[in-house]
């Protein structure tokens, strides 16, 4: 074995331990051998460089699509890319709804398609190729971007001061039939308006009832009752030259509403008058055992009309004159 073969075996890691020891002994003591070794080392180094150079050239023209080693799950670059893409998707979707006046029901699909398609295209461009693995990765990345974009949307609506209930703070309700994007949907707005109107109506009723001081407000609905004018004279007998006084009312008997009348707790019968208004009659014998100095006595009776859950009462006073 000549010197060059000996050195060649060294670079191919084929030396036995004994040969290895002999090799290093010659290298330190034989100048001619050392010179040959330096030349062979230069060749060997050039071969190593040649391999690396070929690889570098291939990286420049042919992309390598092998899984990258990532010990860190989400690094800064990934997080920033994710956030920026989500922001872009959100802006795109929001502008789509403004420009095309798409309903919220469809905007969520615009957002999802943009997120998934964008992720797959970016992955394909970065790797300069496309495969099933890349497409699936892009799909899941797109979902992640979509969820993040919907989060940005929720934050935006919250920041605008839109009244939102906690129960409505949902992100992707694909299982339900309610649109989610924008969070304050058309249906939500209508529901809120309806409640507001209901509250307003209730407030007006309470206000009217309190102003009239007539107890609980009665809603007869659109069905009107029977009306009749009622004139209640202060006195049916008037001396000549004196003033005749009477109170005038419009009495109504609601149709379809049951009501009862009683005098001092005893029910009285009701009959319709010619105008159709139900009327009850009070009839009793006026009696008194004692009279005052003027020969009269003051008495009263209680009239009660019960309608639905309310009872309207009136105390009626009358005077009994002592017979002569």
């Amino acid at each position, binding site marked *: 074995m000549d010197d060059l073969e000996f050195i060649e075996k060294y670079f191919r890691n084929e030396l036995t331990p004994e040969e290895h020891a002999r090799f290093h002994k010659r290298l330190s003591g034989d100048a001619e051998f050392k010179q040959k070794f330096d030349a062979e080392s230069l060749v060997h180094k050039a071969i190593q460089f040649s391999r690396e150079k070929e690889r570098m050239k291939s990286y420049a023209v042919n992309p390598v699509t092998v899984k990258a*080693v990532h010990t860190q799950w989400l690094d800064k670059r990934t997080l920033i890319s994710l956030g920026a893409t989500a922001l872009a998707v959100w802006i795109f979707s929001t502008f789509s709804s403004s420009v095309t006046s798409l309903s919220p029901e469809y905007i969520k699909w615009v957002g999802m398609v943009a997120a998934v398609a964008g992720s797959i295209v970016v992955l394909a461009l970065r790797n300069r190729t496309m495969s099933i693995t890349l497409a699936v990765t892009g799909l899941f990345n797109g979902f992640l971007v979509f969820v993040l974009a919907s989060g940005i949307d929720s934050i935006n609506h919250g920041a605008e001061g839109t009244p939102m209930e906690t129960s409505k703070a949902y992100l992707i309700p694909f299982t339900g039939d309610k649109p989610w994007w924008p969070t304050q949907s058309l249906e939500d707005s209508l529901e809120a308006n309806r409640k507001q109107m209901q509250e307003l109506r209730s407030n007006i009723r309470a206000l009217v009832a309190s102003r009239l001081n007539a107890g609980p407000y009665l809603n007869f609905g659109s069905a009107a009752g029977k009306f009749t004018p009622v004139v209640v004279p202060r006195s049916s007998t008037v001396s000549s030259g004196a003033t005749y006084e009477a109170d005038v009312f419009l009495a109504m008997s609601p149709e379809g509403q049951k009501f009862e009348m009683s005098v001092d707790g005893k029910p009285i019968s009701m009959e319709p008058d010619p105008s159709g208004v139900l009327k009850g009659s009070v009839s009793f014998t006026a009696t008194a055992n004692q009279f005052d100095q003027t020969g009269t006595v003051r008495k009263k009776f209680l009239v009660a009309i019960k309608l639905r859950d309310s009872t309207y009462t009136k105390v009626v006073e009358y005077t009994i004159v002592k017979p002569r």
Partner: protein
Amino acid sequence: MSDEEYLEGIRNDNPAVQKAFYESYQDIVKGVVYKYDSSGEIGFEDHYQDVMVIVCTKIKSGALTVLTAKLSTYLHSVAYNLLLYKIRKTGKTVPLDGVESIPESDGPDIDHLEMLALELLHDLGPPCNEIMIDWYLNQLDYEQIAEKHKYKNANTAKKKKGDCLSRVRVAAEQLLKSKEM
């Protein structure tokens, strides 16, 4: 990707990591070339590949295992020293106006042998470089080389390898002599 991940990936011959490494430090080397090579004779692409070749070989051979500074600092140092070597070879002077002090690299310096090996690469074109890589680095025998490179038999492969080696040995010896002079 962190510096340690780059070192580990390149040491384990992971092509994806090496590619990521190759794509990540172009700006640093570009800055060195544009700043110090006012003549514009040193092409950035070639210089960048030379820097990458040297650093990757050092990592794989175990000469660079631990970094006390950033990998980018080391790359900057290698790019600068190699650029000086190349400019000197052209016989021109390096303008010192605006030259800042290069930070300590905290890694193995480029040695004389590596500078010469880069030059020797010009004498190691295909298919000789491929046969030599298979023989020395991939540890293939002559039969495997014959099969891979479609030679008639192992003897033909041996003869081809012998011719390539003789040629590159001559070039290496001439290179060594020229530098000694």
